[in-house]
């Protein structure tokens, strides 16, 4: 059977034009997706998790019911549980996770914390001038990629949205656009650029600041190895384009300056709107990290790093963010869902997860499940069950189901745990 218009549940592009062929309940082919999409669908049944509990320091197989019972017990008795992950699942599961966090008076954080958390903090400081990806496809004549590498991380972004795509006012596609890539190294994306601005690592803030000053007519001279003339040239291109867009990624959020880099970039684009039309969009990684933020926002007012220990939501990255809670050893239990902190957090932060009862809910085995107390397998979202995901530009799309799951969905598991916690 061939499933059409399938949505790829890997990255924030949420390409929704995949064709997936399923035979005898197995994915046998995919069309149009990138290599990662292909890998995701083709390998969806590999290395799948089983329900397990740790007994005498060994993970042993149990029924899923037993695993959920134990999970509920752990969360119910915890004084400060942490719920973390959520970016690789759908919105109903994210809703249930938020409800659970509220119920057990815990801290809930999603992977934005270690990707675009700094972006969200900066939006709260200065606002943001953004647009959906179609606006870029239809209008952008200047496209800037700063500290992001769609050529490796968002493989069809150029094609579908930002560079090669043709639109209403960009009928010539690539020819209608000037592409500038700013990065510390040559990479898959820089090859495509009309201008590659190679900068020193950790000099983003200085260079964005210089551009901002240049746009306002101030002289700044050479900055961090970039010549005065180059800064003026880029500034002029920005001011004189008809519709510009700046895409940025973790090259800004993770390097020195973090949210202040974004603050500067958001301000740069905001200021440019005094001269022309300009937007700035973040390149979100996991396919529904944007949804994790959206759900948490509408339920609590805050996008990530939310704490419920007082019965109402409070927000503070640095205080309620997972890395910090773990580093300071402030939580006494953890539920990890749809993420793998052991493979993404600084090792020293992960260590605490191995010391406390940790529950892992995931379709696949992960590094974190290897240190877990409880492992609960679930259906793979967007492959084995439906649900909503928010694209990197916050457009919600319904994920499709192409094969039957063996285990219940994240949502069902979480709702079951909620019932068990309430019953206890």
């Amino acid at each position, binding site marked *: 059977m061939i499933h059409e218009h399938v949505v790829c549940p890997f990255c924030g592009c949420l390409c929704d034009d995949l064709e997936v062929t399923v035979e005898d309940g197995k994915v046998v082919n995919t069309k149009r997706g990138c290599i990662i999409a292909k890998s995701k669908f083709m390998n969806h049944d590999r290395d799948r998790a089983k329900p397990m509990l740790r007994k005498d320091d060994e993970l042993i197989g149990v029924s899923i019911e037993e695993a959920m019972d134990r999970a509920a017990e752990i969360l119910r008795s*915890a*004084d*400060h549980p942490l719920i973390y992950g959520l970016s690789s699942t759908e919105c109903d599961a994210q809703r249930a996770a938020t409800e659970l966090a509220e119920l*057990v*008076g*815990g801290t809930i954080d999603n992977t934005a914390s270690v990707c675009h958390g700094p972006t969200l*903090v900066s939006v*709260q*400081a200065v606002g943001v001038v953004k647009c959906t990806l179609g606006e870029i496809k239809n209008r952008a004549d200047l496209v800037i990629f700063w500290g992001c590498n769609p050529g490796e991380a968002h493989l069809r972004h150029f094609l579908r949205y930002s560079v090669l795509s043709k639109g209403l006012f960009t009928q010539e596609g690539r020819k209608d656009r000037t592409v500038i890539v700013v990065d510390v190294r040559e990479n898959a994306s820089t090859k495509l650029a009309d201008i590659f601005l190679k900068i020193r690592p950790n000099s983003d*803030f*200085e260079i964005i*600041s*210089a551009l*901002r*000053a240049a746009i*306002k007519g*101030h002289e*700044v*001279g050479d*900055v*961090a190895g970039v010549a005065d003339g180059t800064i003026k040239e880029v500034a002029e291109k920005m001011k004189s384009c008809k519709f510009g867009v700046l895409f940025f990624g973790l090259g800004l959020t993770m390097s*020195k*300056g973090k949210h*202040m880099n974004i*603050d*500067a970039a958001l*301000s740069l684009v905001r200021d440019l709107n005094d001269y022309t039309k300009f937007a700035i969009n973040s390149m979100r990684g996991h396919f529904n990290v944007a949804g994790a933020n959206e759900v948490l926002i509408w339920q609590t007012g805050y996008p990530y790093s939310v704490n*419920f*220990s*007082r019965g109402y939501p409070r*927000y*503070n*990255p*640095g*205080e309620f963010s997972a890395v910090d809670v773990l580093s*300071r*050893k*402030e939580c*006494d239990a953890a539920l990890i869902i749809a993420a793998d902190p052991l493979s993404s957090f600084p090792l020293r932060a992960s260590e605490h997860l191995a010391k406390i009862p940790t529950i892992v809910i995931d379709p696949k085995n992960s590094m974190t499940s290897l240190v877990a107390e409880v492992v609960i397998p679930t259906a793979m979202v967007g492959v084995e069950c439906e649900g909503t995901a928010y694209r990197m530009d916050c457009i919600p799309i319904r994920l499709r189901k192409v094969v039957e799951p063996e285990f219940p969905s994240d949502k069902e598991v979480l709702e079951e745990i909620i019932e068990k916690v309430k019953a206890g």
Partner: protein
Amino acid sequence: MILRPKFKAKMPIEAECISPDILAEKRIENLEVYHGNKRRKLSDLFEILDVKTKDVRIEGDVGNVKYIGAKMRSGKIIIDGNAGMHLGSEMEGGEIFVEGDAGDWVGAEMRGGLIRIKGNAGNLVGAAYRGSKVGMRQGMIIVEGDAGHEIGERMKRGIIAILGDVASFAGAHMKGGTILCFGNMGERTGAEMDRGTIIAFNPLQLLPTFHYNATYNPVFLRFCLRELRKYDLPIADEHITGRYERYNGDLTELGKGEILVWKG
């Protein structure tokens, strides 16, 4: 009043009730604190002695206790050990003294009073909470050790004096007030500041969006430093009579902030 911690775990405790105004007004034994997600009484976590004295002394380490002295209006708190996050946040008056270190957000959105930390302070000293327009609005914070990133972020008035080093982005988005650093200042000091004064007694790396104006002996600073001597800060005569390079910025924003760098 003396409070002696009885707890051991690292679980965060929130105790904004540790504030002389509240302790004087309310029945102490019933005051609520949070230990993780559990509501507890102050007396569950602290031994409470010498109830009659109004000043509060905490004998022991309360590095995991948050919001001590938050919103306080008067009186004095002395902490013998370390203090947790949000120490004296939004405080309006009174004094807090910490013998050890303090966590992040010391004196965040403070409106008055004095906080003095003998050890080091964390990040965002005197800053605005996320999304807020304005950080510290008045009062004084003195850190005898080092302080972290983004101190004085969005401060509008008041004084922050750091005797040791500060990390990056001191005075980011600053709108007024004065930051003095007797140690070394980190990178990107004054980033995106609109107004306000940052005084560096040692050379520092400036952003390209700060421009040099002049070298002079600012009269207001003489006044300011002489006033601050009352707080036992290491202000030498040369600091008062010396010359300073004046840089204005951040040109990305209003550009009316200044960094004064002491030249001796």
